[in-house]
């Protein structure tokens, strides 16, 4: 019989270390990915994800199933990620102007064998373009988009994580996607349909 996340966490509370291992295996990948998309650095994302699970373990005695386990988990993760982003922003202000420019902190992705190098470069630029657009969103909008698009959470859960109403969240998501639509216009804009025989002005 599969135990729910809440039941697993209650078992952890009563001293069952194996249940903690099950939760860890279940949520490590979504957690690392969420944090990676937030901080855009694989090593930092791993460190933060470890810290999230450590905090869950530390708080096991005080755990009460008042909300979904994932709401609690991603709330911890969101707070940690936002703190990290803010700290990093302050640190970057101290960086020398001679420091090398880091294009993207993504781990190196090896191109598929059949992919040509120019295709690979184009693909890499395309990914960086999309990631930059997401990173440029205001903090709250970015968290909302990541939880909605990649974690596929329902509105109620995201609203609880962000501490806002569902109605406010829907407006927030609309504004975020609208910004992304404009920023990523070259990738998403519909080609203007020209009537047959009417060519583009040269």
């Amino acid at each position, binding site marked *: 019989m599969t135990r729910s996340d809440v039941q697993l966490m209650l078992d952890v509370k009563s001293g069952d270390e194996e249940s*903690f*291992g099950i939760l*860890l*295996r279940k949520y*490590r*990948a979504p957690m*690392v*990915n969420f944090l*990676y*998309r937030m901080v855009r650095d*694989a090593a930092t*994302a*791993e460190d933060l*994800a*470890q810290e999230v*699970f*450590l905090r869950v*373990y*530390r708080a096991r005695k005080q755990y009460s199933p008042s909300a979904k386990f994932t709401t609690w988990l991603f709330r911890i993760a969101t707070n940690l990620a936002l703190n990290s982003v803010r700290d990093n922003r302050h640190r970057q202000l101290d960086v020398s102007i001679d420091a090398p420019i880091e294009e993207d902190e*993504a*781990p190196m*992705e090896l191109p598929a064998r059949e992919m040509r190098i120019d295709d690979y470069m184009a693909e890499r630029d*395309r*990914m960086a373009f*999309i*990631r930059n657009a*997401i990173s440029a969103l205001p903090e709250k909008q970015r968290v909302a*988009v990541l939880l*909605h*698009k*990649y974690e596929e959470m*329902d*509105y109620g859960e995201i609203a609880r994580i962000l501490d806002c109403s569902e*109605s406010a969240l*829907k*407006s927030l*998501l*609309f*504004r975020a*996607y*609208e910004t*992304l*639509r404009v920023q*990523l216009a070259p*990738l*998403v*804009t*519909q080609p203007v349909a020209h009537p047959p025989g009417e060519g583009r002005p040269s």
Partner: protein
Amino acid sequence: MKCEDLSKNLIAYLDRRANSAERSEVEEHLTACATCATRAEEFRKLWTVLDEVPGIEPSFAFDAKVRQRVAAEPKPRWFRWLVPQPRIAFSMALLLALCLWMAKMPVESPATIKAQDFEAIKDLGVLENYDVLTKFDALDELPSGNDTQQQTAPSDSQQNPDDGGGS
């Protein structure tokens, strides 16, 4: 529905989480408004584009690192409740310091308090009169009740023989 009102329902419509009433409202508007219909289509395309961004896998050592950090956590001990929590310890120290400070404050002696009380009441007219009356020497010269009786009795006895003598 106006174009501005679409902001609250369009996302729920596109990700199929809108209820039937919201869905039909949005569909009706999208049929009538070409601008919003284009925007909705571009949102769909945007979501496909966002799906292209690959995720990453946690490192092989991830679980081991978490378990290592969990193992390094201090274990709860049976005598832990005896160890004062920092907040409580600080409060107790503060209370103790307050008690010591209050104990060192100068205490007024009863004589001082009496003198202070006297200063407060010395000008009261009634008490002053009482004082004058109780210590007034002229009153001592007045004959007491017994003296008055003794003085009157001999006069009576002196008077009776006179009366008897007279009869």
